[in-house]
């Protein structure tokens, strides 16, 4: 197997800056915009607190405002990372999808190409994940700085000394930003490999064969899923199901897609 690290580096550079336009600044900008858009839609309370639209005067009583502060939560925002990665990978790859003959004949082995794509997908995901975490950290820091002491004063006013807030609430002193690294990476890999494979499948094999193959794969996946459920018994707990999904099911799908990609790269162009 002829794999050269230099060629992989050149291929990564080609994917990022040649046939695509993937830069760190674009990843960061998309991460920020998607996070902001999500907060605007799903966590308006947070935005209105930050911008000062919501304050104690917006509530009937101090008790209402206190309840609002105590119940302040942020959804798990790292789930947005695969969306950033998929968007970056698809929006920036206009030339790739035009499938120029010049790009099809670059001296890159299929394994080098697959490896390079995996590195690019992982890099986008990890950069976005770190920035997403950083943004959440800043957001929580600002909110806590602005409202934590105010909340404690309000609690003390009603005699709630040393009230413990669950760590899921933003103004809790034990608040922990939730970050699901492994599932995010797995979903990111699955989504982006799926885009790559399906693009190549339809281009190289045609629509009908492509659709038939996708249906066949889905049926096979459903059968594997049923087999896993049968194997594990019907009393499978939610946690186990979650673990099976991320540690067995999706990795299996990823391996299948990598194999598929390898054979598609060896195939003639459409």
């Amino acid at each position, binding site marked *: 197997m*002829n794999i050269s690290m*230099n*060629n992989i580096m*050149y291929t990564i*550079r*080609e994917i990022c*800056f*040649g046939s695509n*336009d993937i830069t760190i600044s674009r990843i960061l900008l998309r991460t920020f915009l998607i996070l902001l858009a999500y907060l605007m839609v799903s966590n308006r309370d947070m935005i209105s607190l930050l911008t000062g639209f919501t304050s104690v005067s917006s509530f009937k009583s101090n008790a209402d405002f206190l309840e609002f502060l105590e119940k302040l939560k942020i959804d798990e925002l790292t789930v947005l990372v695969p969306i950033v990665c998929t968007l970056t990978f698809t929006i920036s790859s206009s*030339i790739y999808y*035009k499938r*120029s*003959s*010049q*790009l*099809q*004949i*670059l*001296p*890159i*082995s*299929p394994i*080098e190409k697959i490896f390079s794509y995996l590195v690019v997908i992982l890099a986008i995901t990890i950069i976005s994940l770190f920035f997403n975490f950083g943004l959440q950290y800043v957001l929580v820091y600002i909110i806590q700085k602005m409202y934590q002491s105010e909340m404690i004063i309000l609690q003390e006013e009603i005699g709630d000394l040393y009230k413990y807030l669950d760590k899921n609430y933003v103004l809790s002193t034990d608040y922990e930003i939730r970050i699901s690294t492994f599932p995010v990476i797995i979903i990111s890999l699955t989504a982006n490999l799926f885009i790559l494979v399906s693009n190549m499948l339809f281009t190289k094999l045609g629509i009908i064969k492509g659709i038939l193959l996708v249906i066949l794969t889905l049926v096979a996946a459903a059968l594997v899923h049923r087999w896993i459920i049968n194997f594990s018994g019907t009393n499978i707990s939610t946690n186990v199901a979650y673990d099976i999904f991320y540690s067995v099911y999706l990795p299996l799908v990823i391996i299948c897609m990598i194999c598929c990609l390898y054979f598609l*790269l*060896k195939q*003639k*162009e459409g």
Partner: protein
Amino acid sequence: MIQIQDLSYFYLKDKPIINNISTSLEPGKIYGLLGLNGEGKTTLLKLLAGILFPKYGTINLNAINSTQRNKEFYSRVYFLPDQPVTFTLTLDKFISIYSAFYADFSFDFLNQALEDLKLDRKNNIKSLSLGQQKKFHLAFALAANTKYLLLDEPTNGLDIPSKSIFRKLLAKRIDDDKTIIISTHLVKDVENLLDHILILKDGQLVLDMSSIDITAKYKFNYATQNIKESLYAENSIANYKSISDNVMEEESSIDIELLFNAIQQGKL
């Protein structure tokens, strides 16, 4: 050496584009691949480049089958399509990204070629006119220094001075190791460069002959009157251009356009 053995290709089985052709293309030569529109010139180049796979038969480039599509194969082949891809990159950036894949890439040659073709490396490829883009990709393809260079309609869209520069660059690039195949219908642009002519008609290679063999076999005449024993003649404004058997083994310069027309009309 490129060996094509019993090659057939079709999209619909009853309408073959390439029908059972066999030939060997030797290194150190520039091949002219001629044919009417839709005769399968681009298809043949794509088959040689491993972009398409033969329906029947084989293509081997130095014993590597074109269907292998591996790194070794593609490090030896450069295929420049008629319409190269438009990148949103500067010439410099494109060169730095894509030259890395070709071990023998010649930066000196490319710099000289860009200078001759009056292309500014700081320009964005997308901002260039189509002709300028073509010039850039041609210069890059020649600088890539691959053993097999497949050019599809390389002079299409080039201005007159650039055609002449292209001919000079091409002549500089050919050496004993390289095989250059030029598919074109603008034969006048490359006429004097071709060592070997391949003409595709109805899916067959109806002519597969070196320029030396052609001039040894046929005499190309320019006369005010038609020569009686000519195999094919064309009447132009001032004279007759004709092809006759070269029984006297006289020297004449090849007129590919005339030859092509004669073959298209089944006279040779």
